[in-house]
């Protein structure tokens, strides 16, 4: 039992403890410092943990030395370790960015509260990812929901309140369904630990086919609501567009991903391939994912507010992940997880840059953001790189996900899906290109704009530059990453 094995627990504890220290301190500078330091240290811990798991293989960690199934257990495999690193890295970049911009969006007195909520949120998301016990996951889900609602409402505008309420109600709906699903599973198997449930379920699913089917559907719908599966995504555009930019970034890139990762763990860890194929429920996920891919982009085309465009784009991208899950093959799931990684870094960069543009110009609508390329060239340039990844230019992670998803569709026998995937990426081009083109080109757009007049200083854009560089790195190192994921799925 090396000390490194307890790092995941340490990470969550550090985040929660530092979170509760924050309301006690009045000086905002110190609060920001603590937040940065805590996130950096947990990122380093996650990195060491990933390295350890890579060398030594996955392990189970008992909390409090109570053995499963009576005690709670963390299962740290390669995928969980990678997700830990991803979440802490992206969160670190977002917090770094927010240090400069948060004053402009929320009141001074609420800043301590904000960083508390962010730490709790990241801690709970990591808990969802690491935990091997279903009820423990449920508790972390609830904590995460409340914390994420908090990060939206901390900005005190009317639209925020409405958006938060919608989000809260839909989330509680989802949680209720998930809890019911857990109840069904407990009543059938008497366990709450994922490995034990799987062992029991394999023996008895033929005896209670209806109950197993109902519990699968409950989990899919419950977690689908929380991770914006079409058509349960209604809460997302309001919530992500009205929140402060760093909250939108965290919500879009991390929160949705933790829940969809839990869905993957439940579908493939608790139920397993045999049961899923017996009931053919994955087809629902497949169809809803394809619909989400197309409809998300179609809705995005009609939006006038830049943050809403990016929010609907998130709905479309989550559709890709559901498509990967719904294919029902190892390759499909690997690509879904790869897309989680790629999308997390890309979307956070896009939201932060959109936030910078809104903050400097005071305008939210696309019509008023024309010509911004001359005023903020670096910002829009980075945005274009992110947009190119969404459109699917080779070398960037968006293209790699699309290509592999198409190959996985052919391998699974659903060749028609290639058309859906390619159509969706074409639609992406339709709404991202005008933002970039109207920003950089067009005489009437550029009239009266002074070069670099509204640019943010370089040090404030550094976190976004890091995110973009890591996005390009994910694209280039894709083969290694996908191999690692496949290894973890064995």
């Amino acid at each position, binding site marked *: 039992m090396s000390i490194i094995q307890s790092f995941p627990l340490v990470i969550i504890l550090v985040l929660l403890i530092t979170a509760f220290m924050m309301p006690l301190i009045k000086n905002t500078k110190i609060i920001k410092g603590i937040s940065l330091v805590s996130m950096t240290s947990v990122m380093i811990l996650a990195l060491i943990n990933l390295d350890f798991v890579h060398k030594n293989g996955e392990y189970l960690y008992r909390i409090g030395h109570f053995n499963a199934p009576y005690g709670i257990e963390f299962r740290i495999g390669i995928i969980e370790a990678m997700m830990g690193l991803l979440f802490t890295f992206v969160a670190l970049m977002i917090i770094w960015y927010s240090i400069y911009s948060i004053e402009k969006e929320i009141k001074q007195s609420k800043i301590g509260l904000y960083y508390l909520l962010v730490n709790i949120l990241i801690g709970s998301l990591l808990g969802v990812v690491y935990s091997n016990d279903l009820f423990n996951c449920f508790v972390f889900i609830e904590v995460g929901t409340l914390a994420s609602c908090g990060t939206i409402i901390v900005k005190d505008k009317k639209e925020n309140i409405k958006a938060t309420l919608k989000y809260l109600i839909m989330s509680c709906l989802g949680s209720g369904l998930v809890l019911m699903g857990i109840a069904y599973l407990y009543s059938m198997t008497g366990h709450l630990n994922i490995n034990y449930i799987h062992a029991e379920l394999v023996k008895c699913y033929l005896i209670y086919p209806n109950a197993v089917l109902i519990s699968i559907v409950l989990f899919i719908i419950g977690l689908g609501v929380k991770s914006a599966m079409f058509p349960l995504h209604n809460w997302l555009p309001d919530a992500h567009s009205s929140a402060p930019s760093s909250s939108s970034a965290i919500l879009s890139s991390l929160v949705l991903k933790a829940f969809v990762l839990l869905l993957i763990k439940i579908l493939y860890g608790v139920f397993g391939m045999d049961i899923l194929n017996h009931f053919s429920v994955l087809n629902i996920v497949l169809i809803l994912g394809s619909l989400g891919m197309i409809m998300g982009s179609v809705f995005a085309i009609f939006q006038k507010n830049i943050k809403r465009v990016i929010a609907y784009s998130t709905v479309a991208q989550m559709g890709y992940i559901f498509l990967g899950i719904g294919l029902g093959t190892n390759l499909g799931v690997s690509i879904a997880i790869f897309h989680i990684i790629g999308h997390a870094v890309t979307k956070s960069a896009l939201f932060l840059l959109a936030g910078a543009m809104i903050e400097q110009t005071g305008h939210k609508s696309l019509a008023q953001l024309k010509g911004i390329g001359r005023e903020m060239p670096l910002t829009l340039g980075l945005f274009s790189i992110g947009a190119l990844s969404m459109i699917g230019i080779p070398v960037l992670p968006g293209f790699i996900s699309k290509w592999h998803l198409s190959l996985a569709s052919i391998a699974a026998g659903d060749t028609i899906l290639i058309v859906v995937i*390619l159509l969706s990426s074409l639609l992406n081009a339709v709404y991202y*290109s005008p933002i970039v083109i109207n920003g950089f080109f067009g005489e009437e757009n*550029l009239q009266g704009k002074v070069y670099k007049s509204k640019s943010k200083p370089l040090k404030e854009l550094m976190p976004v530059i890091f995110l973009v560089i890591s996005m390009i790195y994910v694209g*280039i190192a894709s083969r290694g990453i996908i191999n690692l994921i496949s290894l973890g799925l064995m």
Partner: protein
Amino acid sequence: MDNIIIILPIIFPFILAILMATIKFNEVKRNIFVSIGVILNLIFLITIFYMFGEISIHLIKLNEFLDIYLKIDKLSIMFSLLVAILWIFTTFYAMEYMKHEGKEKRFFTFFLATLGVTIGIAFAGNLITLYAFYEFLTLTTFPLVIHTDSKEALKSGKKYLIYSFIGATFVLLGMILLFSITKDITFNAHGILPALTKENRSLYLLSYVSMFLGFGVKAAIVPFHSWLPAAMVAPTPVSALLHAVAVVKSGIFAIIRMSYFIFGAKIIKELHVNIFLSILIVISILLGSFLALHQENLKKRLAYSTISQLGYVLLGVVLLNEDAFVGSLLHLINHALIKIVLFFCVGAIMYTTGKTDISQIRGIGKQMPITMGCFGIAAISLIGIPPTNGFVSKWYLAQGGLTSGEMIFPAILLFSALLTALYLLPVITEAFFKKGEHTIVKEAPMKMLIPIVMITIIVVLLGLFPNILITFIQQIASEVI
């Protein structure tokens, strides 16, 4: 890693483009910088060809498919030399022309970048590299198309982007289907695919048609041609570049690579798809010429003429015999030269007089004799009258049509030649044989005139002494068919 030298002609223009964008140049320094740059690039190309011959290099292997592979073979040599030489002429022409258009810095930045991308397309050794550089080509030529930044330019630019991305999506569809059959998409002279069987027939068919149409968007096949006349809103050096060298010929180059070096002539014959595609191409040839007759604007007339002429080249590709292939490659080169001359002349008229329509150029032949004279020679070449190079390529194409057994193809070639005469000769008659206004117009400036004259001389020379070129192309053809 010795073969790393192969990336030099691709990277060097990119470095120049970056320098162009970041360093402040005054006009003289900029002109010297760009001209030395493109000339050096040509020298690099020739040196590599002489010293190293046909080398290749796996640049980056990211994945089993994402493998950037550069390879020089005879076809690449032909295309890249054509590109590099014509780029030099265009540079000198543009140095003068862009004085009237402004924003030279942006223009030359993307001008240089496009050169790098086009040579990348020439050197692509497998389908994924070709696709990657193809997408980059759209991105680097877009700012050139919307150079004037007017509302109309933005609209045409949007159309260009939409068509290009839809084409790229079709190509991607074909590539993915292909990849599911064979993991290796490197170009090889006789095609790399396993033999045609009943099971994979529909897959091959779908993949081929999809990629043909996808690349065909850039090669302006009907019905994907309308971006080309719309793109005439760009300044003339851009139109000359797009229509003679970079974009449309890249599309055709990609189709040739895809047809002969991935599928192979044998499989295409067995698929019988060339019959259907040839119908589409014949429509392009005829429709292009018909629509050209109705255009008042000189540049639009030349644009529709291009659509028609590209049909000739593609016809030679799908006829699948050696004569036709030789004719097609010859016409690729010849049309590039001819069309550049025609566009440069029209641009010279626009530069000196500001006139754009055929009705406005009465009597201009008397005042700009050299310009219009070169236009005349190029027009004669396009119609296909000896002793110009257009005649040689049309001859081979007609031979190829005869060999294929269908009499209809040479007949169409003849009919289209008639139409070509019908839409080009009026320009010459208006210029030379009508009385014009008496305002004094000067001949075009030297920097514009010299490239026009030099290329016209090449046009005539290639008509009189075509053998060097023909022998080289016949070597390529024999490897392939």
